[in-house]
């Protein structure tokens, strides 16, 4: 399940959008014990100026994404296009499930949840 884009479409500044992954949806709810699902989220939005600038409270501004956005603003039809809206901070999840030998297994997966998005 994902939230509809802001303003009805994928517009607005680059930011985290809700995406809930349900193990029942993919038919694995019989052997995944917990969680039932998790908020994976995703990144969407524009990375032109000023959106390419960091959100208030973020790190100092001048980085490659800003230069990239400046070049795109100066020559929108040429060059590499705007920076990309990508995950900037991720966090792990753990999944408890029965394996095919009926053992109870706990597996830990890094970088499964998008906490923050940024222009890169």
């Amino acid at each position: 399940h994902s939230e509809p884009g802001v303003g009805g479409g994928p517009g607005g500044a680059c930011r985290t959008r809700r995406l809930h992954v349900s193990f029942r949806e993919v038919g694995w709810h019989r052997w995944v014990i917990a969680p039932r699902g998790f908020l994976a989220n995703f990144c969407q939005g524009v990375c032109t100026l000023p959106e390419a600038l960091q959100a208030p409270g973020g790190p100092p501004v001048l980085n490659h994404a800003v230069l990239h956005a400046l070049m795109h603003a100066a020559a929108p039809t040429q060059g590499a296009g705007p920076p990309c809206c990508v995950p900037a901070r991720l966090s792990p999840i753990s999944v408890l499930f029965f394996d095919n030998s009926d053992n109870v297994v706990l597996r830990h997966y890094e970088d499964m949840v998008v906490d923050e998005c940024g222009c890169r």
Partner: protein
Amino acid sequence: PAPSGPAAAALLQALGMHEVPRGVPTPRPVPPVMWRLFRRRDPREARAGYPLRPCHVEELGVAGNIVRHIPDSGLFSRPPGPTKTLGLCPKWTVTFNLSGVEPAEHPTRARLELRLEAENEDTHGWELSVALLAKHPGPELLRIPVAPGLLVRADLLGAAVAANASMPRTLRLALALHRGATTVCARLTEASLLLVTLDARLCPPPRLRR
């Protein structure tokens, strides 16, 4: 219906699993230790303020990103055995199916967990010996004090399970009770292996020193 084809295969691979889940598993209670470990790793609790180290099992204090609770696959087919005898008590064989462990996973903790039951008599000084079982029982690897009713734990890493080596597909152990002068025998009612492994491929690269 579960996604099939490349989508399911990609998702399984991303989750480090290479077999398509087989229908409905045999329902069995989830061991409390596994629930505890799961909750300990729940990111929401992590956000509540005790940071999680990647590829580390805090509660057991070892490196690892996969924990398995493997029951003895022969437990329910074992005859109860005599509760009293002047001779030797029956020996037990426990078998753990490790076929699900990948070659890239290295064990960092292998804890044997047992529970014995016996009639109430003097069981002071009871000990249990553990040996690897191939065609015949091997040499005694370790001997641990036991008491009926209590959960007995024995660390097998470095003894029955080689550290930093790939796991065998099956681990078979021969257990023998040494009970001193009493004529009481015990029954083995629970036997499981708590196995922690580290698959370094799934771990974030170590941060370079600045």
